[in-house]
């Protein structure tokens, strides 16, 4: 088995690497790029802690090979804050205490941003159903749902004023 060359963008930065084709995107992010904000929660592709945005859409980085990313744009939790500080979704998680142990949080925030991108004003039922692929084992989800609703509303306000 030979190493395969792959070029793609992570958080706006060009990445070129030669990798063993078995390398999962999540391992590439964490071990090669040292972007350890993306977490591995389950190893069975169910928990969503490893959620990143692939060409603008959420995907589980544990169910993708790094070599599949040729030409793609990847955004991780490290790539969402702006020059003024936290992304509104991150700020909403802080404000509403949308976490306990924090392990699932990077995936929750990335999913929350996608929910805000696709829904004008997501209600509780919509948010809960959209979170199907993100597991939290601490919170019971209540504050996560509240955080995403607030983060979606803050993101809209920022767009309107920006």
């Amino acid at each position: 088995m030979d190493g395969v060359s792959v070029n793609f963008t992570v958080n706006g930065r060009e990445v070129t690497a030669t990798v063993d084709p078995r390398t999962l995107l999540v391992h590439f992010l964490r071990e090669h790029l040292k972007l350890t904000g993306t977490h591995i929660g389950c190893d069975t592709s169910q928990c969503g802690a490893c959620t990143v945005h692939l060409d603008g859409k959420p995907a589980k980085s544990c169910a993708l090979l790094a070599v599949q990313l040729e030409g793609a744009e990847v955004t991780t939790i490290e790539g969402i804050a702006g020059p003024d500080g936290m992304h509104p979704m991150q700020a909403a998680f802080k404000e509403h205490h949308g976490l306990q142990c924090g392990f699932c949080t990077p995936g929750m925030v990335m999913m929350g941003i996608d929910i805000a991108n696709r829904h004008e004003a997501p209600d509780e039922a919509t948010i809960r159903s959209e979170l199907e692929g993100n597991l939290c084992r601490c919170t019971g989800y209540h504050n996560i749902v509240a955080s995403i609703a607030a983060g979606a509303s803050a993101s809209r306000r920022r767009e309107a004023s920006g």
Partner: protein
Amino acid sequence: MYPFTYHRPSSLDDAKARLAASEDGRLLAGGMSLLPTMRFRLASCADLVDLNGIEALAGIERGDGHVRVGAMTRHAAVAGSAEVREAIPALAALAGSIGDVQVRNRGTIGGSICFADPAADYPAGLLGLDATINTDRRAIGADDFFTGLYETALEEGEIAVSVEFAIPERAGWAKFGNQASRFAVVAVMVSQAAGGAVRLAVTGARTHVFRVTEMEQALAANFSEEALDGIPVSSEGLNEDLHADRDYRAHLIGVMARRAVRDALAR
């Protein structure tokens, strides 16, 4: 994962050539089942041929009386397609009920039907909607395509290219999903063609998807929930696991069939 050589073909012909040249080649579609299975070392191959770079394999096209869905079309694209929602809304509902958002952004119709998981949703959609699977060498009716547990009629090296759905008069989808995995414990697609013929397909309950002819006949005479009253569903040969025993699955087939009919009448 066991080691493999990765291939990134840019055309169907290129993919066919690479698959043919390998003694132990596998196709990679969305990878939502295959990659986790390879990670558990339950599957392996010498050559992994990735279809994701072949643009011609993805896309949705409405023709005269049918909708054609490219094999590499993602579930999210089918669920959100204006053509599918207008022509066969039950198919859009099925695609939108698969897995979760992240899985629907990657998973493909071709991958789902060729993997042929006994609890996958699309097999019921294809069988219940009388679809045809176009491959690189022939057209296969859904009745002949699904042949067993993870088994299809595809030959060595044969590649599914698209799925063609005849647009029915009406169709309905009902799914009882496993709370954790969202795979179907039992799910039903029912459809009635313009000529009156009814098809009712069940997934999740046996080694592979199947039709219930007694229900189809009753619904052809009278397309209503009441028409299903008194039709017994035998639990013989049904799947049994910690989520549902045979009798419960048999019961669910009746309930999901009624809900699918209700869904068809409401659309």
